[in-house]
């Protein structure tokens, strides 16, 4: 299956167009390294790892042309478990390292695995600048709304008032909404999915890989040790119909039991709001347009995520638009400069260092 064909709009190029493909069928096993996976039992990271190992063969790329980069945190152990090229780097810096890799090489499929602390706290600067530059890479942000590896302090996505080891009287920080942040940084591909929904996760990852530019995917991921149940509302079969607002391009945004609820524009706030479809009629319901060049509506939808305990959240691809990528542009400038300067590098080097005002002593 070629991801290029799956591009849902007449795109520039697929995110993996320049990456060599493999004509042999691949299996998830080939992508599994010989290292023992050491996450806590029940950790949501296992599900994501399985999904990625299962999904990568579908990309049909040469395994040696795939690079996973991570920072620090539980999720950042991810690259060790995949038999691709990989770097487990330092806290928060994975997007900058991946920027170097992706800019240096057009033939690599570059992935960043990060968490809410790594990406939004210590590495916040790199994240927003990667999104701004639109470097061709896919960022998977595992959001468990807690610090796991340092054993249970609140994170920049924890709800305010959270009681943790470092905040016995409750945290005072207002949390980030990762999707709002990514949209604010004008991310060209911004999505949210759930660790436990393998089908949705895989579909979003496929679209993210196919997107040329920085693809940002927030993955809700349960930490059974330090923040168990943070996403129960959207995982519990009794509540999830009301909790998950599914975003599908070209379709009315409806949710709830039998699609009883929907989104309409809110003329009062300029945003969007939840209504009973019966009250407004199905035609009034907002149709999701992920390809809208203007991120305003996507941002408005992102605001429907609860900032406190999560009872409601839009899930899916918020935004997927074309925008020139930094790395393609950087390589194009080099190609242009090279075309304008014929000759062997060694001769051009001689001309360069021997230029300017010179004089000769005999």
């Amino acid at each position: 299956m070629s991801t290029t064909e799956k591009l849902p709009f007449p795109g520039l190029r697929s995110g993996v167009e320049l990456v060599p493909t493999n004509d042999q069928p691949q299996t998830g096993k080939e992508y599994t390294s010989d290292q023992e996976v050491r996450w806590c039992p029940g950790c949501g990271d296992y599900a994501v790892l399985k999904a990625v190992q299962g999904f990568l063969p579908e990309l049909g790329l040469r395994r040696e042309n795939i690079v996973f980069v991570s920072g620090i945190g539980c999720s950042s152990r991810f690259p060790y478990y995949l038999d691709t090229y990989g770097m487990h780097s330092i806290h928060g810096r994975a997007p900058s390292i991946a920027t170097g890799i992706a800019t240096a090489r057009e033939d690599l499929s570059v992935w960043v695995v990060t968490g809410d602390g790594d990406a939004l706290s210590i590495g916040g600067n790199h994240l927003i600048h990667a999104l701004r530059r639109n470097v061709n890479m896919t960022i998977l942000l595992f959001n468990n709304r807690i610090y796991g590896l340092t054993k249970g302090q609140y994170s920049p996505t924890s709800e305010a008032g959270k009681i943790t080891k470092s905040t016995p009287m409750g945290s005072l920080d207002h949390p980030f909404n990762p999707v709002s942040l990514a949209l604010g940084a004008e991310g060209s591909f911004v999505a949210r999915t759930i660790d436990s929904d393998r089908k949705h996760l895989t579909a979003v990852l496929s679209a993210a890989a196919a997107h040329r530019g920085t693809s940002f995917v927030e993955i809700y991921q349960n930490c059974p040790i330090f923040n168990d149940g943070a996403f129960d509302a959207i995982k519990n079969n009794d509540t999830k119909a009301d909790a998950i607002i599914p975003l599908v391009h070209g379709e009315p945004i409806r949710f709830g039991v039998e699609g009883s609820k929907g989104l309409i524009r809110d003329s009062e706030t300029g945003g969007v709001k939840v209504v009973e479809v019966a009250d407004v009629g199905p035609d009034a319901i907002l149709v999701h347009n992920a390809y809208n060049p203007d991120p305003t509506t996507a941002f408005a939808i992102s605001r429907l995520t609860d900032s406190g305990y999560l009872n409601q959240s839009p899930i899916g691809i918020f935004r997927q638009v074309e925008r020139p990528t930094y790395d393609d542009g950087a390589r194009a400038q080099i190609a242009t400069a090279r075309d304008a300067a014929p000759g062997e590098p060694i001769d051009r080097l001689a001309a360069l260092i021997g230029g300017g005002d010179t004089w000769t002593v005999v």
Partner: protein
Amino acid sequence: MSKQVKQLDRVIIRFAGDSGDGMQLTGDRFTQESAVFGNDLVTLPNFPAEIRAPQGTLPGVSSFQVHFADHDILTAGDAPDVLVAMNPAALKANLGDLPKGATIIVDTHDFTGRNLIKAGYADNPLDGLGEPGSPLGEFFVHPVDLTGMTVEAVKEFGLSRKDAARAKNMFALGLLSWMYGRPIESTITFLEKRFAKVADIRDANITAFKAGWNFGETTETFVVSYEIKPAPMSAGTYRNITGNLALSYGLVAAGVQSGLPVFLGSYPITPASDILHELSKHKAFGVTTLQAEDEIAGVGAAIGASFAGSLGVTTTSGPGIALKSEAIGLAVMTELPLLVIDVQRGGPSTGLPTKTEQADLLQAMFGRNGEAPVPIVAPQSPGDCFSAALEAARIAITYRTPVMLLSDGYLANGSEPWRIPELADLPVIDPNFATERNKTVVAKDGTETEEYWPYLRDEETLARPWAIPGTPGLEHRIGGLEKGEGHGNISYDPANHDFMVRTRQAKVDRIADSLPPLVVDDPSGEANVLVLGWGSTYGPIGAGCRRVRKAGYHVAQVHLRHLNPFPKDLGEILSRYDKVLVPEMNLGQLSLLIRGKYLVDAIGYNQVNGMPIKAAELAEAIGNLVAEAEGVTVDLTPDPIAEEASK
């Protein structure tokens, strides 16, 4: 009127004016003219950190000193023979540096009430020149209305008075060019190019430049012009070059000589930004420059590029190194090639952004968590930055390690004639990428499989293989966690950690095997005192040693290109001398390392005032040590016989 021409062997001129007066350009053009003429020269630009400090004030004074000679010289000179002062502040700020009998050419135009007050003059120092009690009585002062004559000369171009007056620096340049017999063609060509798009500004500048020349030729104010013959230099083609430019060219050359694309990740910072600017022009060589969001991202991107098979480079100054430290540690752990260029400036913290210092040596050496050895190389002169960059690249690529290159503000902006190297003489650097699996693993049942072990080392260099993404069969993971020797998997094994810490150190120590013997400059072979230096103090130390020798005493000099590891013969050389003097622009950082490693009683000569060490003052210190070591009285007055012998 026929004018007298006097022969001089060397002259030090300082151009000084307001930050907006174009003194750096004026000095640079005078330097280019002198270079093309064939003098040896060394320059010292000195400017405030503020782009435009309040006009006419002391903090706003910008100056450019050029020392040019008919013989080989090593420093920009301790004290100017000639000061060109464009306003009262420039006069006041620089007067203290002038020796008795120096010449001052002063633009009288701005010596008005307001400007005098701004400069802190209660009375006009130009009043009563030549009379007893004049504050400038010790000097030869030429008061000239440079601005007024410039405005008059460029009247025909119809510029505003302000624009017309701006050409006064070219008038001054023309006057000085006449006075010292400089060839003027290169400046005219330069002005034609620089202002090609604004015809009236171009013509005004050229006219002002020529008018300044003609003024010197015709006026009775100046009765003497000077001739400084070309300096004998070894055969070759030369150009004048600053340290930052030479360093940039060295990085481009490192890319060509290794066949690797150069990838610079950098965040602008004084005085390193010019390297970013320069490299961004050389995309045709496959050079990528990423202006990162911060210092950490700059080095992060460079590490990523190195992992992907580029020569990753990051350029910065001391404060940036502090921010990059953790990432440099990652490069130590992942054993990837990386060049870290630190153009040192006055510190700590923001310190003195535009002034020079050598106080980052210990930061380069130790400024990381854990045992994280990083090789250090340092250029000794502006032109030497070229080969220092190539040497840093050789070490980084051969040994798979980050390498710190310590330049400084003086080297970065100072210039000297540079003999353009023959490309055939440059080192060829082989990246030697891994392409095959390197380890046969035998399972319990006897079956053999070939694997790629990223930490299986070269026996000679202890370098690990460098397998880049896209190489089939060599997929592997690296990272900041401790690696098991050989296979490179995460290892928390105590014995392994101890072994890996020692191995990383041993790898850096092994670099010493590849270094040439040190050059000991001990002409008489009878010296008891050794002067040991590193980096940009090479010039002052060399000049200081010459003064001592010219007075008939013995002194030896060794200058270090490699600060980590030290060359293997350093210990033996140190042991040959009774006294070791270590001049540094810090409080004794090399001294500390030398004392620690060799148990030698290194004596520091330390100055941290943001300026290069003065050769004459250093010579006194050397002389005192010679006196102590040899039990003699030292008088540094040149001894004609010794002077002849020292040539």
